[in-house]
């Protein structure tokens, strides 16, 4: 639910930024609009995408495709057991080998993309929404509110890393939903601090003052002046965050606190494969490699988005 609430927020606010900048220019038919011309010039000046960015984008697109339609990549059932072919090493028939029940690891890894990406996206959406709430309160509210939110964040930082997620799971129990919310909660304080300082610095700039003088309401100022300015930064931050959320969520599943076997989830698969570590390396290698692959792709893209925002 929060995932669907989180996603449209960013593009929507970006649209507000474009329409907010002025009325449509008068121009002759066929003549390119200022914006189109601007885009052309900008794409000339923009550095060509680096190979790492292209590779990352392709990896993410393939992973999303695997999450949406795993049948495109494999015809096998991820839960189908075939005891006769247990522990087959990677081979043309089974690219990533098979596990102790003869299930095909490649198939399971492909089907695992859905769980891992979904948890990563939802957790990031939850974390970003919470952080946006806290960060806006602190960045825009009166001093006592800023002080209060800052103290709250300080307290939350005393639960470093996965600790906040573990406490949450102690309270609300083990499971995929619980792990998703737990990861979102654990990532929120970090985002909130960044968003707060972004908003603070925008608030001090001249165009906010102008909007106040023009008599715009605080809600209007937030929607038309502040959100569009932080939107690009938030999007880059969220892209980075998805990578981190995938790593953390798979760690929780690895610990037995998230998705549980026989579900095809990368962390849970790796955990189950550890029993046979001296016998079959492929049970642990491939699921983990996919966590690394997806998180690395998200990280590279997030970083380059941040770099481009800075250069603009």
């Amino acid at each position, binding site marked *: 639910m929060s995932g669907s609430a989180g996603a449209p927020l960013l593009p929507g606010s970006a649209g507000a930024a474009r329409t907010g900048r002025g009325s449509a220019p008068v121009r002759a038919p066929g003549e390119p609009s200022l914006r189109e011309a601007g885009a052309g010039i900008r794409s000339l000046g923009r550095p060509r995408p680096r190979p*790492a960015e292209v590779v990352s984008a392709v990896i993410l697109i393939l992973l999303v495709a695997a999450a949406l339609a795993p049948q495109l990549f494999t015809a096998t059932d991820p839960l189908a057991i075939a005891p006769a072919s247990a522990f087959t090493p990677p081979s043309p028939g089974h690219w990533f080998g098979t596990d102790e029940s003869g299930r095909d690891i490649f198939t399971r890894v492909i089907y695992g993309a859905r769980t891992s990406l979904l948890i990563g996206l939802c957790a990031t959406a939850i974390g970003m929404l919470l952080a946006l709430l806290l960060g806006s309160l602190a960045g825009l509210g009166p001093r006592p509110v800023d002080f209060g939110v800052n*103290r709250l964040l*300080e*307290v939350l*930082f*005393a*639960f*470093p*890393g*996965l*600790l906040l997620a*573990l*406490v949450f*799971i*102690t*309270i*609300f129990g*083990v499971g995929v939903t619980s792990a998703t919310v737990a990861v979102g909660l654990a990532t929120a304080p970090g985002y909130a601090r960044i968003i707060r300082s972004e908003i603070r610095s925008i608030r001090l700039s001249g165009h906010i003052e102008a909007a106040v003088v023009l008599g715009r309401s605080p809600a209007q100022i937030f929607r038309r002046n502040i959100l569009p300015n932080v939107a690009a930064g938030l999007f880059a931050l969220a892209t*980075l965050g998805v*990578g*981190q959320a995938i*790593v953390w969520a*798979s*760690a929780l599943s*690895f*610990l*037995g*606190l998230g998705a549980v076997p026989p579900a095809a989830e990368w*962390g849970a698969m*790796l*955990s189950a494969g*550890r029993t046979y*570590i*001296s016998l079959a*390396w492929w049970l*642990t*290698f491939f699921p*983990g*490699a996919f*966590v*690394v692959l997806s*998180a*690395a792709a*998200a*990280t*590279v893209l997030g*970083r380059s988005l941040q770099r481009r925002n800075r250069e603009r």
Partner: protein
Amino acid sequence: MTTLASAPPRRPLGALTWVGSRLAGALFVLWAVATLIFFGIRLIPGDPAEAILGGPGSRATPEALAQARAEFGLDQPLLTQYLHELGRLASFDFGTSYALKVPVAQVLLDGLGNTLVLAIASLAVAWLLAIALALWATRGGRVAGAVSTVLEIVAAAVPNFWLGTILILVFSVALGWLPAISTPGIPGLVLPVLTLAVPLAGFLGQLMRESVLNALDAPFVVSARARGESETGVRLIHALRHAALPAISLSGWAFGSLISSAVVVETVFARPGLGRTLLNAVLIRDVPVVIGVVMVVALVYIVVTIATDLADRIADPRLRGR
């Protein structure tokens, strides 16, 4: 800049006020953590007395439940329980483990030593690796750019549980050099420490690389070069000292997250410690142990943060006037 003029005469008082405000802040955070977790734990559905007696499956008699409630103070009003809990935590009394029926302080002490050794060793190794990587990655050229990209990726995208498993596959299963299960002694410590240190080194190295690059353009480096100092001298003494600052500030955070990453690493290497204690307690909802571990981690985090701020003030003369 304007504060510089008024700062020097007030420095002794300034330092004392600084320490005082930091201690007050630390006490506040500890109180808030205790309060947050005390009321958070009350959200657990079900009867805590039942959890003490082994969960809903245990079919405890009403008398046994009443006795457990009295024993753990659960029959008192919530406010009484809360104040009682704060009083106990202030005297380092964490109560009795639901599952193990021994004092939580004992359980924590058993695990803390092992985990601290792991975390301190990992932080030290991470720093060494990060310094080497940062110096290497600032020499310019294509290689340096590639190194920094790899650092970013390793820091952000390689999960501890996978790295630890791969290290076991390579060094224990294939080569047979090091034990897969963390035995007491140095050999048993190598793989867990590497597992924790490598991603952290990527993070710190990335941070240091950027500040070394900034420092190399700074006036004090230009003047050091003008004095005729060697390139190595400039890099090691001037640029690195400058580059260490942000990394020192983040070491407090890093140490805290090392302790919570220990949950994963201690599980991968079957190593006894605070992390495994916490994981077991989370799995069976042994609430006093969870509270105990959280309080200890928060305490360690606060102590290390104050220590790193102090180190910052020593390494960076600009901060001392504040």
